């Protein structure tokens, strides 16, 4: 018996989702699927951490990355605004004073 369930939402005529809208949709659906299955290795890690006294929170958010040559910065936050704000701060940290002696 095929247990695959498919959700179909017809788009209004002329609507063309932007790539980031599709990315958001995909992320959301992956998160829902994760809640109901997928890899379970995390549970073991989480249990051990809780046994060691850690209080855990899992949230879905934005990861933004900036790369230029060897330089790489990454920031994560619940909103894209916050994530980019942090990314900018990280980039700016080194922008003017990278080699100051």
């Amino acid at each position, binding site marked *: 018996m095929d247990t695959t369930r498919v959700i179909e939402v017809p788009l209004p005529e002329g609507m063309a989702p932007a790539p980031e809208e599709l990315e958001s949709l995909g992320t959301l659906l992956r998160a829902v699927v994760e809640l109901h299955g997928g890899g379970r290795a995390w549970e073991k890690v989480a249990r051990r951490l809780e046994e060691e006294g850690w209080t855990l929170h899992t949230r879905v958010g934005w990861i933004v990355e900036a790369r230029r040559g060897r330089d790489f910065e990454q920031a994560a936050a619940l909103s894209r605004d916050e994530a980019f704000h942090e990314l900018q701060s990280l980039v*700016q940290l080194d922008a*003017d*004073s990278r080699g*100051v*002696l």
Partner: protein
Amino acid sequence: MFSAGVRERYQQDLRGIEEAGLLKRERLIESPQGADICVEFPPGAPVKRVINLCSNNYLGLSSHPEVVAAAREGLDARGYGMSSVRFICGTQDIHHRLEERLTTFLGTEDTLLFPSCMDANAGVFEALLGEADVMIADRLVHASIVDGMRLCRAQPDTFKHSDMGHLEEKLQEHQDKRARVVITDGVFSMDGDVAKLDEMVALAERYDAMVFVDDSHATGFIGRTGRGTHEHRGVVGRIDVITTTLGKALGGASGGCVSGRRELVEMCRQRARPYLFSNTVPPVIVAGALKVLDLIGSTTERRDKLEENTRYWRRGLTELGFDLKEGESPIVPVMLYNAKLAQDVARDLYAEGIYVVGFFFPVVAKGLARIRTQLSAAHERHHLDAGLEAFARVGAKYGILGKGRKEIVETYGA
């Protein structure tokens, strides 16, 4: 495994650095540090005696006979090394004595030694702040502060260099944070300008923020009695954390410290990883540093001479027609704007017997290449006159005397 492929990758990276003109080469000095030094450069060339205008030996104490003698006595009395971190069996009475002397000199509540100021800056933020806090740094702070901020969970943010309006905006923006720390150098090492600590402290008090200052390029000579930038700006006792170094004016060997509010220093003693997991300054340097504090505590003669040397040098270069960064510290940048020009001028000055270094991107911003000259109390008038004569000859050769940024860039490019 360091395979042939891995080796090739690193060799390629190094070639890339060299091709970009960014390879750093050390010059061998075959004499004690001082106003006159003997240098072998390039490697294999005959040793040449040159006037040193690029060290941080601001007070001329790096090879001072009394400092050397005190260090030797310290070596005899307390040995060479401690073979332990501070909190196991690596603290001698003289470490505490030096911390007390630094506290008195800086006008703070307590002090903790670190192996270097680089280590102090790397450890202090993580020890004091957490994810609920924010660090707001001037955009030209020293690289060690940037590294320290990256090691800390508090939110990093920056304000435009010395822009108090922008700092105020940032302080307003971060009122929701548990703690705010304003972070700055006292004297900025590449431009030589002095932080507006008086305005910064006023803002910090208005917006309930702490103030952190790295005073490495100021301790010992900035301010009427050389206490540092906080003395110069009239805010002694109102700076929460000062980090500084023993590796520049205070004898120039190595070592640094965190000095400030008692509780903050104690937190560093409990939590700062470079303090906890590394040996501290060796006895020989502690003994030398104690003598340095004796010398600069008994008279302001050396910082006064440095101030006079700086005035003389700045006036001389200005009269010759060089384009200088405005400032009042013994860091006097001669602006050349073009990276190749900065290197060529430095090379020709070396041929004239003047040791200076050209700085260009990425050490300074693109199009702001320069030669950073640094004065010392060890310089006598004849050193400065010889330096000015050499600068005049080399400046004339390149046709840059009396020229400003626009004209230099028109001739040589940015």
